[in-house]
């Protein structure tokens, strides 16, 4: 099999590259050629195609998301805002919380158990990469109608996946949502939130400074997970149709992730990490380009050193593999022995695969030949940005016409029907599959409006603080469909109220924006309106958005899901012992209705 090296790329400038098969547009490909001054190698194309994908580059949403920064209210609590793996908020007494919500929608439709499980795994690694100990998870779920056939496959699988992965990690599940609506039948939503705790002076960032520092890949070995597209690149000729597509399903190993958590915390404690990044959707491509771009700017990697689960993987596939439970760290040469010893204690494989340089280039070799030589920032930060056209959907006004509902004759029957409906029924079937007690700091969980955690015993050294944090997620696709601007605001208002009623002061917001295709101007309008609404409401309430995630293309054919912005709010309570549980706790108390 010929290796597509940089040398070869120079010799064969006109070779056809399968950029379209990898989801890249003609003009994007031309830009890559301009940046490099030649055609990209297969490996370079792998990197650019994945880094410039909607998922990693936010090319359709970026221009709108900026409002979260430009309209952001002043906040003293904000320590790290948007743009890092997760936002970090000062919660007082020297402690900080980091939290983020992320989607794993499509994989959860293909293989519900593994898709949902690896969704939890991914967000937990994001939180770890900030230097924090993950302390709880939440999940916000949308399924098709309870009576629709495929829901019987998707719902139990998703719940089992979240349950198994989260329980196995020893992270209490302190809340979430389950909503049924036929619009989600081919596109279930699985949004997972993780919150972590760290000392506010010990935040870690995804950066690779210091030439000579070592680049370490640690955690699971790399396999063929999620590299359907990359196999085109690895085939002998790009035209080779017969090349069987490698699997797209990623399988999670929560046991390995648990070891990774404990291993990372010990690495942080020993202070042997200069920079760190989790490996998410874009795997090694993403970790190397982002670390290099935010550091000194250069990195040299020998891809042959990446430990493989499947020895037949080609470099292009290694670059695009989505194998789970992997992290990448930058470590000084002096600390490398200590770093490796800690990994060994936790049975976590770790391998030095490269070095930080001051060349300003990310270079990679395979069998001694240079196969990647790019300015890392062009892949990580300078992806395409689209101003997608949008306009109000044709039927929007009609949706909002006032209809007079007849008063039902039989109130009893109506009540019974409501009580028996899927969306009002007990959530216990789901929540009883989640461990809400582990770690012993859960003050409130289901059925409370918000989850509340005690801080003092969550980490060594925190014993002095009386503080707690509260978290809630909310979202209502039906509201957002009627009016995405107001719908997003209502989601925020609800999560904000849910946090406030526990006695906590809301401090910060994360969000997961689940929409149909951005290439549909009507969907894009919903998106633009929702972001505008959320940004305005955050400004009014005085809480900044610290991070989040956009999930587009949740649609089957021309039918998109309801626009579904899911909002998570984090608050702080000064004395967690004074939290207010819901429910009437004694007889003869007065009942007061607040608000109008």
């Amino acid at each position, binding site marked *: 099999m010929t290796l597509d090296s940089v040398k070869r790329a120079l010799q064969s400038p006109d070779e056809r590259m399968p950029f379209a098969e990898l989801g890249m547009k003609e003009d994007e490909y031309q830009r890559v050629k301009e940046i490099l001054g030649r055609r990209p190698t297969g490996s370079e194309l792998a990197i650019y195609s994945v880094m410039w994908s909607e998922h990693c580059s936010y090319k359709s949403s970026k221009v709108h998301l900026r409002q979260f920064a430009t309209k952001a209210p002043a906040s003293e609590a904000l320590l790290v805002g948007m743009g890092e793996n997760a936002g970090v908020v000062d919660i007082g007494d020297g402690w900080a919380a980091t939290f983020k919500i992320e989607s794993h929608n499509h994989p959860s439709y293909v*293989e519900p158990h593994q898709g949902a499980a690896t969704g939890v795994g991914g967000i937990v690694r994001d939180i770890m990469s900030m230097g924090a100990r993950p302390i709880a998870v939440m999940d916000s779920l949308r399924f098709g109608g309870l009576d629709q056939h495929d829901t019987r496959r998707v719902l139990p699988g998703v719940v089992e996946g979240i349950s198994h992965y989260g329980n196995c990690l020893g992270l209490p599940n302190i809340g979430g949502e389950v909503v049924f609506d036929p619009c989600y039948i081919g596109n279930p939503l699985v949004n997972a939130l993780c919150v972590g705790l760290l000392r506010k002076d010990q935040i870690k960032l995804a950066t690779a400074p210091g030439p000579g520092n070592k680049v370490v890949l640690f955690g699971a070995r790399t*396999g*063929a997970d999620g590299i359907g597209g990359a196999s085109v690149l690895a085939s002998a000729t790009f035209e080779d149709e017969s090349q069987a597509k*490698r*699997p797209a399903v990623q*399988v999670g*190993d929560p*046991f390995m992730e648990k070891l990774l958590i404990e291993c990372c915390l010990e690495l942080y404690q020993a202070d042997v990490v200069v920079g760190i990044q989790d490996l998410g959707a874009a795997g090694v491509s993403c970790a190397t380009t982002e670390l290099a771009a935010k550091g000194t700017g250069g990195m040299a990697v020998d891809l042959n050193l990446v430990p493989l689960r*499947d020895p037949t993987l080609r470099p292009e596939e290694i670059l695009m593999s989505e194998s789970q439970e992997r992290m990448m760290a930058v470590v000084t040469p002096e600390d490398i022995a200590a770093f490796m010893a800690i990994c060994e204690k936790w*049975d976590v494989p770790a391998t030095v695969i490269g070095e930080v340089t001051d060349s300003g280039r990310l270079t990679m070799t395979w069998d001694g030949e240079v196969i990647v030589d790019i300015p890392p920032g062009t892949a990580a930060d300078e992806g395409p940005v689209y101003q997608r056209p949008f306009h109000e959907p044709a039927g929007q006004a009609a949706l909002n016409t006032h209809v007079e509902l007849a008063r039902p004759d039989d109130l009893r029957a109506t009540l019974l029907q409501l009580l028996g409906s899927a969306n009002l029924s007990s959530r216990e079937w789901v929540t009883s599959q989640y461990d809400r007690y582990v770690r012993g700091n859960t003050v409130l969980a289901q059925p409370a409006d918000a989850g509340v955690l005690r801080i003092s015993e969550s980490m060594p050294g925190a014993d002095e603080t009386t503080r707690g944090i509260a978290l809630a997620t909310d979202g209502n696709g039906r509201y957002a469909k009627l009016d995405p601007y107001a719908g997003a605001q209502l989601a925020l208002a609800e999560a904000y109220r849910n946090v406030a009623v526990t006695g906590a002061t809301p401090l910060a917001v994360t969000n997961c924006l689940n929409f149909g295709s951005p290439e549909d101007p009507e969907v894009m309008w919903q998106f633009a309106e929702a972001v505008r609404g959320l940004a305005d409401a955050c400004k009014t309430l005085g809480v900044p958005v610290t991070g989040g995630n956009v999930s587009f293309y949740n649609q089957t054919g021309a039918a998109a899901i309801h626009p579904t912005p899911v909002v998570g709010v984090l608050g702080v309570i000064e004395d967690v012992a004074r939290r207010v549980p819901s429910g009437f706790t004694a007889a003869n108390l007065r009942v007061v209705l607040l608000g109008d």
Partner: protein
Amino acid sequence: MARVIVDVMLKPEILDPQGQAIARALPRLGFSSVADVRQGKRFELELPGPATEETLAEARKIAETLLANTVIEDFHLHIEEDA
């Protein structure tokens, strides 16, 4: 009475964390000769009457739709004699 055995294993390219955990544990237990371990499932289906073409076809359909998750698993089916 016929007994149809359905063996379900993860596809070779899919990560098998269970098998790996066992393989890693073996040397610690003093077993050094095993290069790799994969863990899968075994189902025993009891069918009344002899195994005919039809029962086998039905068993195959059961394996495909219920016993194996063909997104990530392969299955293999055979009849056990003298069940």
